[in-house]
């Protein structure tokens, strides 16, 4: 799985490498800017897509987030992680997008729902049972509120601390924790309802890792 991440360019930059690229991009180095996009685009898109569940909107949000980040590189303080900043911008853009939706009809990406777009390698490696449980977890993630979903994704996918999540979502740390904990509670309930035997969970964890 990790090897696959690296192949798809999802390997995370170290703090130091990120800092260097940001300072070169600030000086106008196009190649560094390109590397920053390459290093973050898949994770940023996955995050935006999970929040919006619409490919086109998520892609627009990603593009806009990069352009905004680059246009204000001058005001970006190197104390922060560029990646955290990028997710902050993307999250706000997602919220704007959701607000805009209220006034018009929109479509979710049912065609791209996890259960109907399985990865070939996953299909081979995991049992039907594990797949069913994974689907259940993702369905439960979709049921979470936007803030809970964002908190869960940033925590597990981006390895952000509760403080960093609070910063990215623009909420107090206690609220960020409460979103994360409530989200866990709901995911647990939803999965526990399907699990009859602890060995199923063991199989699921093995399939996931």
């Amino acid at each position, binding site marked *: *799985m990790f090897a*696959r*991440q690296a192949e*798809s360019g*999802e390997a995370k930059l170290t703090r130091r490498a990120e800092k260097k690229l940001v300072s070169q991009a*600030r000086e*106008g180095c*196009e190649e560094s*800017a*390109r590397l920053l*996009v*390459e290093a973050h*685009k*898949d994770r940023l*898109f*996955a995050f935006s*897509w999970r929040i919006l569940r619409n490919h086109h909107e998520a*892609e627009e949000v*990603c*593009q806009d987030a*990069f*352009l905004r980040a*680059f*246009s*204000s*590189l*001058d*005001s970006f*303080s190197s104390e922060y992680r560029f990646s955290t900043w990028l997710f902050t911008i993307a999250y706000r853009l997602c919220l704007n997008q959701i607000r805009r939706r209220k006034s018009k009809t929109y479509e979710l990406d049912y065609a*791209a729902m*996890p259960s109907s*777009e*399985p*990865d070939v390698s*996953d299909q081979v490696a995991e049992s039907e049972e594990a797949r069913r*449980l*994974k689907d259940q*977890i*993702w369905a439960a*993630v979709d049921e979470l509120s936007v803030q809970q979903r964002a908190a*869960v994704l940033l925590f*597990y*996918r981006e390895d952000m601390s*509760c403080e960093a999540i609070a910063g990215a979502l623009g909420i107090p740390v206690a609220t960020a*924790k409460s979103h*994360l*904990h409530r989200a*866990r509670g709901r*995911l*647990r309930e939803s*999965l*526990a309802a399907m*699990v009859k035997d*602890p060995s199923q*969970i*063991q199989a*699921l*964890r093995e399939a*996931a*890792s």
Partner: protein
Amino acid sequence: MITCLHARQLFDRHLDDELPPSLRAELHAHLLQCSECQAEMAILEACGDVIRLDRREPKLAASFTDRVMATRRAAPVASGRRWHRLVYYVASPMAAAASIVLAFLMFSPMLGTDDTPSVKPTAIASEMIAPPAPFRQAAMQRAHRSLTPLEKAELERTPTMSATSFLDYLLAPVVEGTKNTVDGTRRSAKDMEALIMFAFDSMSDQLAAEFRERYPEDGFTPSLGKVGSDVSPLMAPFPAAAPAQPSPPAPQAEDDTPGPI
């Protein structure tokens, strides 16, 4: 030994990696001998594993990066905006000051035409050539606050000009261009508009000249653009205006205000 209830209260802190070592050891000890709590924890951890590792989102098109880079090139905001932003931040409070001056200059002659005694337009004009120090200081402080730390650092590196003289330098052509109206003669709004535009153009020229002089190697001339047409016929019937007297600088205004451009 902790109870099941207590153990479950610790789950979230454990998963957040915020449990002190002593409690973590207690929790582990409890999990080892309680299969129910163990199953609960396994479910929570499994959820985390799946979210962390299971990547089934659709993928971005391979051309995404190229598209972002091309859009960025089409609008190179980061480098092009710096100068623009500085002028904007520094000049906007002054634009406000300038419009107050112009408003007084435009309406004062009209106020003076009825029988009620009014403030003498010339007095107002000379007071307003340089806005009162507290106003000027507040405006400049506001401008300074809205700058980012990087812009402030940039300002500090650039050759400094005191805030007062910069204000005068921007306002002088405006005032001078419209000064002929304060000698008691009334002008039509159309004439006034032409004069204001002329003043704006002079300001633009002066700004460009100043920039060329300071940064000849830049080969770049900022321009506020030209908005007016030739106003010499309007100027002709009036005696040449005396150059606007810059007011004495307000000493406190120079300490904490940026030295722009």
